């Protein structure tokens, strides 16, 4: 008899589950729409997964003076339509005049396409040397709000706050002209005050429809690229991918030292391909899915929803399960998780892959 033969506990050895296990602890982040396989060194007795943080892909600017997105934004030709959308948090000064919150052109140039604050109210202005159109007396919400300023050239201009239309008027076809005057900037003028923060500010090369505005607003917990594909983005402060038209990605290189003292928060690096910052909107749709087969090879895991989901910060699940592996995948955002498992002394070679009803059927 060989003295090299070693007896080991089998998968159904009760005692292996009754004695306290050895710990297995790990914490990491699963990026949006990706999957991570965690392989345990021995068969588990239990697995405890906790969602530490939902992280949404977003970008965040805040500060007191303007941020120059581009000194030479895409000039619009006669008859072009445009939309500006942004998430904004504003602390305004009711006594000051003409503080810009979003400006296409500058606050004082003849040709402009801007939203500004005056005497505690927002104003949407569309002017050139001949014509002037405006929507006035728009109340300033508290906290974060979604603003959309739509110019459908020759037809109308509208302002939406949190998907509620604040007013509209006839737009003039030629107003945008060959020049917007100055650059496209965010924030009050350098001689103004007030504090502003911005997220996901986009200048669109089209007049977004009411339903597209609604989609953007409803995407507040979940900035996903498909929701932003309805028109070309001329200037986008959420650069996630290379786009042939310019000046996309201008934010990264466009902090104007003469103006901007806004801070870009949560920015990782251009090489990351995505900007990651915490969402200001609380709990949302960021979802960590826990399953026992890979979604890549077995579509029934997703199709038949054979997973447990964690989508609230601090939420956890303790599973009394024997397994040699577990899969974590995410949707609608990145998820920061921690995992704790109790390990038996049973070798993973004795453990089969889970399959069947409730797993992958």
């Amino acid at each position, binding site marked *: 008899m060989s003295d090299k033969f070693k007896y080991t506990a089998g998968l159904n050895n*009760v005692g292996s589950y009754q004695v306290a296990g050895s710990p297995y602890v790990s914490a990491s982040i699963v990026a949006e729409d990706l999957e991570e396989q965690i392989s345990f060194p021995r068969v588990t007795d239990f697995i405890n997964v906790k969602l530490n943080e939902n992280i949404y892909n977003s970008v965040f600017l805040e500060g007191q003076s303007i941020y120059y997105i581009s000194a030479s934004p895409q000039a619009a030709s006669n008859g072009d339509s445009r939309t500006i959308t942004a998430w904004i948090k504003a602390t305004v000064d009711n006594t000051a005049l003409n503080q810009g919150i979003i400006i296409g052109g500058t606050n004082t140039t003849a040709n402009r396409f801007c939203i500004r604050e005056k005497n505690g109210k927002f104003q949407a202005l569309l002017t050139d040397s001949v014509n002037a159109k405006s929507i006035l007396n728009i109340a300033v919400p508290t906290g974060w709000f979604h603003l959309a300023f739509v110019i459908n050239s020759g037809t109308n201009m509208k302002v939406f706050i949190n998907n509620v239309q604040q007013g509209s008027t006839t737009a003039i076809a030629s107003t945008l002209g060959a020049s917007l005057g100055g650059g496209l900037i965010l924030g009050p003028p350098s001689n103004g005050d007030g504090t502003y923060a911005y997220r996901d500010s986009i200048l669109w090369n089209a007049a977004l429809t009411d339903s597209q505005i609604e989609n953007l607003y409803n995407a507040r917990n979940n900035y996903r690229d498909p929701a932003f594909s309805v028109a070309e983005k001329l200037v986008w402060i959420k650069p996630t991918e290379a786009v042939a038209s310019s000046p996309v990605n201008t934010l990264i290189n466009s902090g104007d030292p003469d103006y901007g003292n806004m801070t870009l928060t949560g920015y990782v690096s251009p090489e990351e391909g995505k900007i990651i910052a915490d969402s200001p909107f609380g709990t949302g749709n960021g979802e960590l899915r826990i399953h026992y087969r890979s979604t890549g090879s077995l579509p029934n895991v997703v199709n038949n*929803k054979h997973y447990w*989901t964690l989508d609230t910060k601090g939420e956890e699940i303790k599973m009394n399960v024997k397994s040699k592996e577990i899969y974590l995948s995410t949707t609608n955002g990145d998820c920061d998780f921690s995992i704790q498992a109790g390990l038996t002394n049973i070798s993973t070679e004795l453990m089969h892959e889970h399959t069947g009803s*409730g797993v992958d059927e």
Partner: protein
Amino acid sequence: MSVHKYTAGLHNVGSYQVSGRPFTKAADQGAGVTTITFPKVTKQIVFLNRGANDMLVYFHVDSPAGNKFTIAAGDQYTFDVKCKQIYTSGTNGQGYTLYASLTHIPEGRMYNLTGSGVTE
């Protein structure tokens, strides 16, 4: 000689002492009663109500109202129970997530739960 395969019985203590096999399901409550059938006898069921309204979980399709367990909106509850089916009802379309630890015991060994606390 006939081929007979021994399997663990319903009262095999070890089957409940070893850790279970996973069964996971995320779904929306349908109209009326939803039946969830397990391929093996359970040892533990974790149920999370993701909807905005109460959900009822019970162990016989004809359980009276007094034998239905209420899980409030957003609440999670763990049942340490052996069974082969559970029944849920609630608002049509509201979401829930379920995790169960299954024993090796075939569901055919499990009897239908009835009687006090279940159907009376």
